[in-house]
C-alpha cells in the first residue's frame, strides 16, 4: 500500500451514470489487476474504494458509477484537482492460473477491473473471452475498449435492448481454461453455479479502512474468516461458502 497524491487530468461520461477519470501520479503501489484504491474526498469522512480500471506508469484510470455523494463529487471534480489516494489495496487476480483461454465475466460496474486484467493476460499471450452483462443498452460501456485490446467480447442485456437478451451466463463460451469475475453478488452466484472450471470472483462490501485494520468488511470462507479489503476482494471459487 502506498499513500499518493494524484492529480485529476480529465473525466468523461461513458454512459448514463458511469464515468471514467484519468489521474496523474505514482502508480507503482498497484501490483495486480483486481486491486483497488481508496480515495479521500473533501468533506466526506471515509475514503471511497474504487477498483483500478487501468494503470500505466504515472497514470491511473478509474471507471465508476455515481451511486452517492462520494462518486458524485469525484465525477464533478475539475481537472487539476488533487486527491489523497491509498493505492495497491487488496490481493487482486492471480494471473498465473489463467491458462491459454481464460474467461472474463463482468456485470455492470464490475466490468472496469477486468480491463486491466485483460490487458495483462493479452500481454502474456493468453486469449481472453470477455462476457459482459448490463441491465439495458443505456448502461453498456467498454465493449469497444475490450475489442480494441484484441479480446473476443460477448454482450448480454437483461431487457434485450443490446446483445443477447438475458444474463451474462447466457453468453458464456463452451470451453475456457479458467474464469475471472466481478459484478453484483447475484451474478457471481449464478456464475459460480454455471462455470465448469476453477476461477476467481471479486466481491464488494462496505468498508471502513480498506487496508485490513477495522474488520468492517469480513466474510466467512472455507479457509476461515477473511477481510474483503485485505485478504480479498478476490476469492477463489473453491473457498467461497455458497
Amino acid at each position, binding site marked *: *500500500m502506498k499513500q499518493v497524491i494524484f492529480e485529476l487530468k480529465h473525466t468523461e461520461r461513458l454512459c448514463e451514470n458511469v464515468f471514467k477519470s484519468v489521474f496523474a501520479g505514482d502508480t507503482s503501489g498497484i501490483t495486480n489487476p483486481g486491486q483497488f484504491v481508496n480515495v479521500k474526498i473533501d468533506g466526506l469522512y471515509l475514503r471511497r474504494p474504487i477498483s483500478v480500471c487501468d494503470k500505466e506508469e504515472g497514470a491511473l484510470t478509474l471507471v465508476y458509477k455515481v451511486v452517492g455523494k462520494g462518486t458524485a463529487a469525484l465525477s464533478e471534480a475539475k481537472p487539476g484537482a488533487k486527491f489523497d489516494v491509498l493505492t495497491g489495496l487488496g490481493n487482486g487476480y492471480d494471473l498465473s492460473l489463467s491458462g491459454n483461454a481464460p474467461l472474463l465475466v463482468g456485470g455492470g460496474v464490475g466490468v472496469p477491473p477486468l480491463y486491466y486484467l485483460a490487458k495483462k493476460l493479452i500481454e502474456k499471450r493468453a486469449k481472453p473471452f470477455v462476457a459482459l452483462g448490463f441491465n439495458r443498452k443505456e448502461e453498456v460501456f467498454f465493449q469497444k475498449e475490450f475489442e480494441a485490446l484484441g479480446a473476443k467480447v460477448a454482450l448480454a442485456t437483461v431487457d434485450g435492448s443490446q446483445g443477447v437478451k438475458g444474463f451474462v451466463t447466457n453468453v458464456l463460451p463452451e470451453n475456457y481454461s479458467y474464469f475471472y469475475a466481478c459484478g453484483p453478488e447475484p451474478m457471481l452466484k449464478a456464475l459460480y453455479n454455471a462455470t465448469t472450471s476453477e476461477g476467481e470472483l471479486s466481491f464488494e462490501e462496505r468498508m471502513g479502512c480498506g487496508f485490513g485494520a*477495522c*474488520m468492517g468488511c469480513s466474510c466467512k470462507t472455507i479457509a476461515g474468516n477473511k477481510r474483503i479489503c485485505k485478504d480479498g476482494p478476490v476469492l477463489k471459487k473453491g473457498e467461497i461458502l455458497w
Partner: protein
Amino acid sequence: MVDTKINLCGIELDNPVIPASGTFGYGYEFAELYDINCLGTFSFKGTTLEERFGNPTPRIAECASGMLNAVGLQNPGVKKVVSEELPRLKKVFNKKVMANVSGFGIDEYVEVCRILDKEEQVGWLEVNVSCPNVHGGGLSFGTDAKTAAAVTAAVKKATTKPVIIKLSPNVTDITEIARAVEDAGADGVSLINTLVGMRLDLRTKKPVIKNVTGGLSGPAVFPVALNMVYKTSKAVKIPVVGMGGVSSAEDVLEMILAGATAVEVGAANLVDPFACKEIVEKLPEAMQKYGIKSLNELRGKA
C-alpha cells in the same frame, strides 16, 4: 525541548499517543507502513475467550465527520492471540502493549485476563465493559455501576497487571460508573467508547448497518468525549485515558488539558493509516506553539 513523556499506571510512555482498540488490529498492518515503536503504546483488537466472527455485514456507515461501526468484536480468540499474534507483534514492537479484553460474563473476562496476565509484552489490561455492538455483552456490564464494579473486582484478582476499565458514554452519568470501578480496584479508566447511533438508507428503506445500530466515532464525538474526560478526571483519582474523535496533536493536548493522562486515537487510523505517526511527530511542535513544556504540567489545568 519539550517533555512528551507520561506515566500510565506505573509504566512510562515516550508519548501519550495510543491507537485505540479495534482500529489497529494486532499492530501488524500498520507495522508494514511505519515503525510502530514511535507510539506510546497501542491497544490491540478486543479479545474474547473464543474466536468470534462478529456481526453480519454491512457493519460500517458514514456520517458527518464520523462513522458508525458494528463489527461486533471479531477476533481470533485469546489462545490464538497468545500463540500467533503476540509472537508476531514481538518482532515489530519492542514496547509494552495494551491488551483489550471483552467478555459475555464475569467468568470469561476473568479467564481472558488470567491468560493474558502471563504474557510479558502485555503492559496493561484494558477491560471493555462498554461495547455497544454485542447483544447481552459488554454494554450491560458497563451501564450499571454494580456490575461494572463486579467485573473490575473479579478481574483484579486474576492479574497483577494494571487494569484499565473502558467505559461507555451511553449512560446517564459516566462519573458514577467511573467511581464504582475505582472503588472496586481499577487502576485506571478509559473513555469514551462509541456512542450508539444509526443510519437509514432511503433507497432500500432499511438501516444501512445490518445490526441496525452501530457505534459512532470520529471528530463528531470529540466535544462529547472531551467533556466526559473533563468530568471523570475530576471525579476519580486514578488515571483517565481520553479518547473519542482525537485526530490531531492539538486534540491530544486538549484531552490532557481536560485531565487525561494518555490519549487514544481511533477512527483517524482508518481514514489515514499514518495518523498516529503524524500526531506523534507533530506533538512537540504543537506543545511549543502553545508554550507547554511538559504534559504532566498541562494535565487537568482546565
